[in-house]
């Protein structure tokens, strides 16, 4: 509850600052201060199980340690994102306070869609996430690519919302409880009405749209490529993780006797996402576009949580959200500082900016899933969760093969950084780098390694 109210409040405060203050740097400091306060408030709620505010939400939202731990991860990643890329947000356009305000509204949506208990709240949460993102995608108003990305994202998002609502309406009509509460729906108990079956498929399609799982991924590369790079970094990490979390919570209660049918569907989506995401990423020349495809490929691994639907999967998803978000935010922060977004633009970075090169190495290794990094642990948890279900061993082998393919395109960047000479001898590869930025990169890299060595630091929070 703390997070939902405080993020919405801070969003309004930032809008007011935008209206009454001309300062360009003030919004960033308010945003960083605010997110720290919200993070602390969320941790207090997690430890004491009591919110500062008491409202009767009629059980429409549930605040258990699993949900609150995920919100904590999302807030922590946002804090690191603000510290690393906050100055880049100021360069997007002249409405700095509004950008931060919209990011806070997105966080409010993340908190709602992480705690929803009825289909109504799921819909509201997803919409509160999406609508500010449409604006942020198009925030570079003179840039045609940004315009195009915004329009495409908007049309696709609204279309998938329509499908989701149709699914919700069918589920409402099909169950004889006349309820929207997911705990009362009880899929797979007794005979399932055809209306509910259609509704579930519609919900599956629309959620796949939101998390960009193949075959509903086609908007992702274009939107991620066209949006201003700072906002791509936010969309590809925190928002995507929140989408997956909502996806998992929606189908968390399992399907009883229908579990095998559900698994058949989700296995197809998972396999297609893994293969297509990884294979297309191999052929990209622009690092930004490659990271967009890599986010589809990583989504394939997160889909394992939906396939398994057990305790390990929950732990794994939280760990994966943290590992993937931290590494991607880090690599995007480096990318934003680069003058050239192609892979060749990274040539010889190790000689000119050793700190960026080494931290970038850690981020890329974590995305690949090399042992001792958080990426390895999270992939391991996911595969372990899937292995408990058995019956689909080939899928696990496919996932490992795809992780090997992903090594190819991540290592292409590493090769460019460390083993290639820069073509322009005198010019700088990057824009000005401050010591504070380097320090934040090092902290992020250390966090990733720490999570890789001791995943318990994060997963233990689930059982408070």
């Amino acid at each position: 509850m703390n997070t939902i109210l405080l993020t919405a409040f801070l969003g309004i405060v930032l809008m007011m600052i935008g209206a009454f203050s001309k300062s360009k740097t003030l919004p960033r400091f308010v945003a960083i201060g605010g997110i720290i306060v919200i993070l602390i408030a969320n941790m207090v709620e997690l430890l004491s199980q009591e919110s500062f505010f008491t409202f009767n939400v009629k059980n429409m939202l549930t605040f258990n340690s699993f949900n609150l731990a995920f919100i904590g991860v999302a807030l922590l990643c946002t804090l690191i994102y603000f510290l690393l890329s906050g100055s880049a947000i100021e360069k997007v356009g002249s409405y700095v306070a509004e950008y931060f305000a919209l990011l806070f509204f997105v966080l409010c949506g993340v908190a709602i869609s992480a705690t929803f208990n009825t289909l109504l709240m799921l819909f509201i949460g997803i919409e509160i996430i999406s609508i500010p993102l449409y604006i942020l995608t198009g925030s570079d108003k003179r840039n045609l690519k940004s315009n195009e990305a915004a329009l495409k994202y908007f049309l696709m998002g609204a279309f998938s919302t329509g499908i989701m609502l149709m699914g919700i309406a069918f589920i409402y009509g099909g169950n004889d409880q006349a309820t929207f509460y997911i705990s009362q729906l009880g899929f797979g108990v007794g005979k399932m009405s055809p209306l509910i079956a259609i509704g579930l498929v519609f919900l599956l399609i629309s959620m796949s749209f939101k998390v960009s799982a193949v075959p509903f991924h086609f908007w992702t590369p274009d939107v991620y490529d066209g949006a201003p790079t700072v906002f791509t970094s936010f969309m590809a990490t925190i928002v995507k993780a929140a989408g997956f979390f909502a996806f998992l919570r929606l189908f968390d209660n399992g399907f009883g006797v229908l579990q095998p049918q559900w698994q058949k569907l989700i296995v197809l989506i998972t396999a297609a996402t893994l293969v297509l995401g990884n294979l297309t990423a191999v052929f990209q020349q622009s690092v930004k576009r490659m990271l967009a495809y890599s986010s589809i490929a990583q989504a394939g691994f997160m889909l394992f949580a939906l396939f398994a639907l057990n305790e390990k999967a929950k732990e794994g998803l939280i760990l994966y959200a943290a590992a993937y978000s931290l590494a991607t935010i880090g690599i995007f922060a480096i990318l934003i500082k680069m003058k050239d977004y192609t892979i060749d633009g990274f040539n010889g970075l190790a000689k000119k900016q050793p700190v960026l090169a080494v931290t970038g190495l850690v981020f890329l290794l974590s995305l690949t899933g090399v042992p001792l990094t958080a990426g390895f642990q999270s992939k391991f948890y996911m595969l372990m969760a899937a292995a408990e279900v058995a019956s689909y061993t080939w899928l696990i082998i496919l996932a490992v093969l795809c992780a090997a393919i992903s090594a190819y395109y991540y290592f292409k960047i590493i090769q460019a950084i460390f083993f290639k000479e820069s073509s322009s001898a005198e010019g700088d590869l990057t824009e000005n780098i401050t010591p504070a930025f380097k320090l934040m990169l090092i902290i992020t890299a250390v966090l990733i390694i720490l999570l890789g060595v001791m995943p318990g630091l994060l997963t233990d929070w689930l059982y408070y």
Partner: protein
Amino acid sequence: MEIRWYIGLAVALFSIGVMGVLTRRNAIIVFMCIELMLNAVNLLLVAFSKMHALSPVGLTNPSVVSNAQIFVFFIMVVAAAEVAVGLAIIVMMYRNTHVVDINFLNRLKN
């Protein structure tokens, strides 16, 4: 009337919306088709809510029935917010390119 007529009408409207989104090239018309999809859902929710009013659960606990009708208001509000943002995006694109054609949207492909 029986519920199936309402389901039929709502599904027909929804399908017209989906077909419009998939085939039309004018951004405004695509947008109108999306609104049509949302309104088909509104119709269906209200119809189902009246259906549940006569079912055993609705007769024992009448307050349950209004849930879906309140849901409809939420959909309307969210759709209005989406219109505000969506039209702004379309106007922004029109200012830069002087077309509202979706075929224009292929610069990112290469």
